[in-house]
């Protein structure tokens, strides 16, 4: 009975969607805990260690506390947009995570084409993901505006200006990558990076593209050193100054869901996704499909968590950019560099030929 139900593609699609939401929603509290632990270590503190083992349940305690906070509305505000802002900030992170292939169950075509574990297997997956993740800043912009507070408004405006500037850099970086891979299918991009040794990964073949994408990713997730929309020293709390309780928590959830998804994108595009070099893990292919699937999923998660740690490392090490420095970096350094990168990639593909398929 249950096995017959599991043969139905619709049921499988629903299960996969729930799994994607579950992964993001269980990753977010862990990331909040990790951020607090990492920041504590960087500042020679211990960090949360009272609630649960190693303070692991600290995020749950925070959520319970936030639920009991006063439900505050500022005066003369646009109530609908004020309510919609936090939700709009949260949704794109979850939606774009559903496009990312998180593992492979070889020979099991029921779960996806070629056994690729992803909610949607799209030929233009990379473009769809860029489209969805570019909508993430609207929540911050509209929420900041609807708060009827100068600091919130400045935070929202900064967020939208930052997104416009760095979305171009990210798009141009993706363009150079797409020229090299010849496809926009995320699962195919991962498969291309499965080689005998490490240099098969795109980070080694396209180091400049990786650097440009990484910097744009810092800016698009609004994380330090580009966290100007919520710069505490200048803007009180930035876009979420007027938000309390669970609505503030939605913004936090959105920020960490965005961080998680952005790191997943980076891992998929540049760090080989769910694969490891075959020289290290070739023996794994002899095991049954669910062992291989679990192992590939574990590899993917391990890579994403390592990259998240790198993002936190940068946040707690580097000082924040000034606003004019941010704009100058984006428009006068990164965009010309991205254009040069496209030209360079085209030249290498035409005349170099040393990494062309």
């Amino acid at each position, binding site marked *: 009975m249950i096995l017959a139900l599991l043969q139905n593609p619709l049921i499988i699609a629903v299960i996969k969607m729930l799994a994607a939401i579950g992964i993001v929603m269980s990753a977010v509290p862990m990331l909040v805990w990790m951020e607090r632990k990492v920041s504590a270590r960087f500042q020679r503190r211990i960090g949360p260690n009272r609630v649960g083992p190693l303070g692991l349940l600290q995020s749950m305690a925070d959520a319970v506390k936030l639920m009991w906070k006063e439900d505050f509305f500022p005066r003369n505000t646009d109530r609908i*947009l004020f309510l919609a802002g936090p939700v709009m900030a949260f949704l794109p992170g979850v939606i774009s995570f559903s496009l990312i292939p998180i593992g492979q169950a070889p020979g099991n075509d029921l779960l996806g084409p070629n056994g690729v574990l992803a909610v949607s297997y799209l030929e*233009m997956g990379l*473009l769809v993901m860029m489209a969805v993740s570019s909508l993430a800043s*609207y929540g911050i912009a*509209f929420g900041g505006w609807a708060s009827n507070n100068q600091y919130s*408004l400045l935070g929202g405006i900064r967020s*939208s200006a930052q997104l416009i500037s760095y979305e171009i850099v990210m798009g141009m970086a993706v363009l150079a990558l797409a020229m090299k891979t010849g496809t926009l299918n995320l699962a195919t991009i991962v498969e291309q990076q499965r080689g005998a040794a490490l240099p098969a990964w795109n980070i080694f073949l396209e180091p400049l593209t990786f650097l440009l994408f990484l910097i744009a990713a810092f800016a698009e997730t609004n994380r330090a050193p580009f966290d100007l929309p919520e710069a505490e020293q200048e803007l009180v709390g930035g876009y979420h100054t007027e938000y309390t309780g669970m609505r503030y928590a939605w913004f936090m959830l959105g920020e960490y869901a965005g961080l998680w998804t952005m790191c997943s994108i980076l891992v998929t595009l540049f760090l080989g996704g769910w694969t490891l070099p075959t020289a290290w893990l070739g023996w794994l292919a002899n095991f049954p499909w669910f062992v291989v699937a679990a192992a590939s999923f574990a590899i993917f998660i391990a890579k994403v968590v390592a990259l998240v740690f790198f993002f936190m490392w940068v946040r707690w090490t580097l000082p924040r950019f000034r606003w004019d420095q941010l704009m100058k970096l984006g428009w006068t350094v990164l965009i010309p560099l991205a254009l040069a990168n496209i030209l360079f990639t085209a030249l290498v593909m035409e005349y170099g030929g040393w990494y062309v398929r």
Partner: protein
Amino acid sequence: MPPQLIDILFALAAIGLLGLSAAVVLIRNPVRSTLLLILSFLPTALLYILMQAPFVGILQILVYGGAIMMLFTFVIMMINPAPKGGEIPGEDAKIRWKGLVSTLVLLAVAGIIVIPPVYHAAMALPPAAVGKPGFGGIASLAELIFRDPANNPLTVSFELISFLILVGIIAALNFSRRRRSDISGDA
């Protein structure tokens, strides 16, 4: 997908698009209009995808929804920061019926000029071309535009359009640049 489902989705997207578009122009609050315009791009993209043009549909969200409307939002928020009281004043009744008449005339003219050629072109298309896998995707579009570039009129027009955009950027830079006479005072 079964054809009935496509029809139902098409109808839902069309109704949603019409409703959202009407709301964009009827609502007095410019920031809410902006949000509704962004939302109206989602059914638009769905319409493109249902008409087997997924690439155009995704670009609709990526370019217009993600980039251009973000610019609009930025500018409107810079101009009109107050959530209440920043509404566009209503026009008087005299202008209203003139607007109605001119809109209807415009719709009629556009219907006569636009719909028949599109209908004939769609009818003239061989059914096999639409059914092919990958139709409307990036590869088929690239094939259409860049195959045999020396004799392909689409290649020339594509490159000319990019040249036109470059000219537009340079013109905008030139207009927004401060003249020497403007800055002589504080030099």
